[in-house]
């Protein structure tokens, strides 16, 4: 059955992967979902048709989706109201009549994309549908059936919206609408304990959806910080576990009522089953541990807003000083010094950890930064022989760089040969991107790309910025 996904106009690149993940979650198996767009629609258009096995699946998907507005059964579409009428009249009667009976209640919602209609215009649009034999009673609060009439603008001037070639009008029956209240509930401004890089609630919920969070599953965040990603996973019922190298953040927080635990208590969620102070570079997992996590979800430190740290002193690893000797009587309270943890190393450790500790079919969901011009390049992104990239969603952060949410699925078991192979692949990756991944502030490093002052030529440029900025423009 074909349904219309009516999306919100946000995080454009994340919308289809989210629906695909939710379909996977509710169908329980890998399915090749069929998508189509009506002619003349821009890839950033809010309308996408999807083929789903049943209305129930569509309802389940909408109930968890963050980026959907709703799912409709389309009765007709057209570029003008005349075309719409022809299309609705051609839609099979047996699919319409059950929802038009005299004993039912209904309402018609008029919605627009890229334009505004005043109340009179909306009423006029509704009255123009008089050729549909509605026999039920209009009820504005909690009607049995809701119909949507959605009109988009065809103007060239499109207030920052994607270029629309043509006006389009859609009419359909509502199957389900999404619940955006959850995004408000978890808003960071209401969060008890926050860190400087806490993950935005909407994105954290999206990450939990990508990770297929659900009751009975165990999810791990190796860079847990204040727990903002795990809160979203726990919202969907998953058990959570986190680690961080900074003990102050996870153990102490800002006091007994303002710490990672209190962030879960605040929403009445099951707290993490464990918080561990550990270094992702030298993880403390027993060697026989394998296939334990259903998902690993994280936002690794990549040195733009916060840099990573790992064990072993900075000077020691540079070789500029001799190994430390710590007196026996000082060992108890010794605070080990740490060294910078480069992005290449961090991601290598992360992929290897995921390959080892994820269950087969489990998912690794993480952010990876990219200079704007590298986002389309497949070679730019890290790979692992056990992990298959299933989604790469770009979020443009500035004119210079983006972060991409990568979703990978473990497809094969982790063997000694694979561990050796992974080291090789990783070495090639490092060789190809050495300057990009260095900690230095020199040309080419991500930090440099993000923070270096603009060249003069650019500053003097007078050409106006495009009003619409998107991946496909």
């Amino acid at each position, binding site marked *: 059955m074909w349904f219309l996904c009516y999306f919100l106009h946000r995080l454009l690149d994340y919308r289809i992967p989210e629906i695909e993940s939710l379909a996977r979650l509710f169908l329980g198996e890998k399915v090749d979902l069929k998508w189509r767009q009506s002619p003349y629609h821009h890839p950033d258009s809010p309308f996408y048709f999807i083929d789903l096995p049943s209305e129930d699946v569509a309802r389940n998907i909408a109930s968890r989706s963050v980026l959907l507005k709703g799912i409709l059964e389309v009765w007709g579409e057209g570029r003008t109201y005349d075309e719409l009428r022809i299309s609705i009249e051609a839609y099979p009667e047996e699919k319409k009549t059950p929802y038009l009976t005299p004993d039912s209640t209904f309402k018609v919602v008029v919605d627009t994309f890229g334009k505004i209609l005043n109340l009179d215009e909306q009423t006029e649009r509704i009255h123009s549908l008089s050729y549909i034999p509605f026999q039920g009673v209009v009820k504005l609060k909690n009607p049995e059936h809701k119909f949507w009439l959605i009109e988009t603008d065809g103007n060239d001037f499109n207030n920052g919206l994607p270029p629309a070639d043509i006006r389009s009008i859609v009419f359909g029956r509502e199957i389900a609408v999404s619940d955006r209240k959850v995004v408000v509930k978890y808003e960071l401004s209401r969060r008890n304990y926050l860190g400087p890089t806490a993950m935005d609630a909407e994105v954290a919920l999206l990450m939990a959806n990508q990770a297929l969070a659900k*009751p*009975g*599953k*165990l999810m791990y965040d190796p860079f847990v910080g204040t727990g903002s990603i795990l809160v979203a996973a726990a919202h969907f019922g998953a*058990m959570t*576990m986190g680690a961080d*190298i900074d*003990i102050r953040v*996870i*153990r*102490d927080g800002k006091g007994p009522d303002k710490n990672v635990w209190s962030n879960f208590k605040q929403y009445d969620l*099951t707290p993490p*089953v*464990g*918080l*561990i*102070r*550990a*270094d992702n570079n*030298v*993880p*403390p*997992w*027993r*060697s*026989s*541990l394998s*296939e*334990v996590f*259903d998902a690993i979800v994280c936002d690794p430190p990549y040195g733009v807003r916060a840099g990573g740290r790992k*064990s*072993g*002193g900075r000077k*020691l690893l540079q070789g500029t000083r001799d*190994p*430390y*000797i*710590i007196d026996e009587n000082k*060992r*108890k309270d*010794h605070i*080990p*010094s740490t060294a910078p943890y480069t992005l290449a190393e961090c991601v290598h450790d992360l992929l290897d950890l995921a390959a080892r500790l994820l269950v087969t079919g489990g998912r690794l969901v993480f952010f990876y930064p990219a200079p704007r011009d590298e986002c389309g390049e497949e070679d730019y992104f890290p790979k692992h022989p056990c992990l298959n990239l299933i989604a790469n969603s770009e979020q443009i952060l500035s004119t210079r760089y983006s972060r991409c949410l990568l979703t990978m699925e473990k497809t094969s078991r982790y063997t000694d040969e694979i561990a050796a192979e992974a080291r090789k692949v990783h070495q090639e990756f490092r060789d190809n991107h050495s300057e990009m991944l260095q900690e230095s502030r020199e040309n080419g490093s991500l930090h440099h790309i993000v923070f270096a002052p603009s060249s003069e030529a650019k500053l003097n440029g007078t050409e106006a910025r495009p009003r619409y900025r998107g991946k496909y423009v």
Partner: protein
Amino acid sequence: MRLLTHNMLTCNIKGVTKGFPLSIEVQKLETKETDFNPDFLKNIFPKLEWKAFHDAALSVGLNDIPEQVDPVMLEDSEFLQKFHHALLEVHLEEGALICPETGRRFPVSKGVPNMLLHEDEV
């Protein structure tokens, strides 16, 4: 720290080969009520090192965890309750984990085990 976490951790000092299981030094235990979720228990059961779990349960004063187990026991609700309690409800709030090979003490404070190594242990 719950026993689930304990079951996953090892002493990872360079050169140590038998860092698992860490023995538990108890200073303060707490019981925190946790929602009972049989699906999660069944999911995690095959992934545990049972002997280490049994011994850890003993060291925190729980002697009703059987030494030998079989997956059919997961159908027994009484067993599941005991398993749930030992795995997820008993917390080591203050204490330490001790490496069986080197005797290195990894402190546990406010329920968080500190597994970070010193510079000369990496």
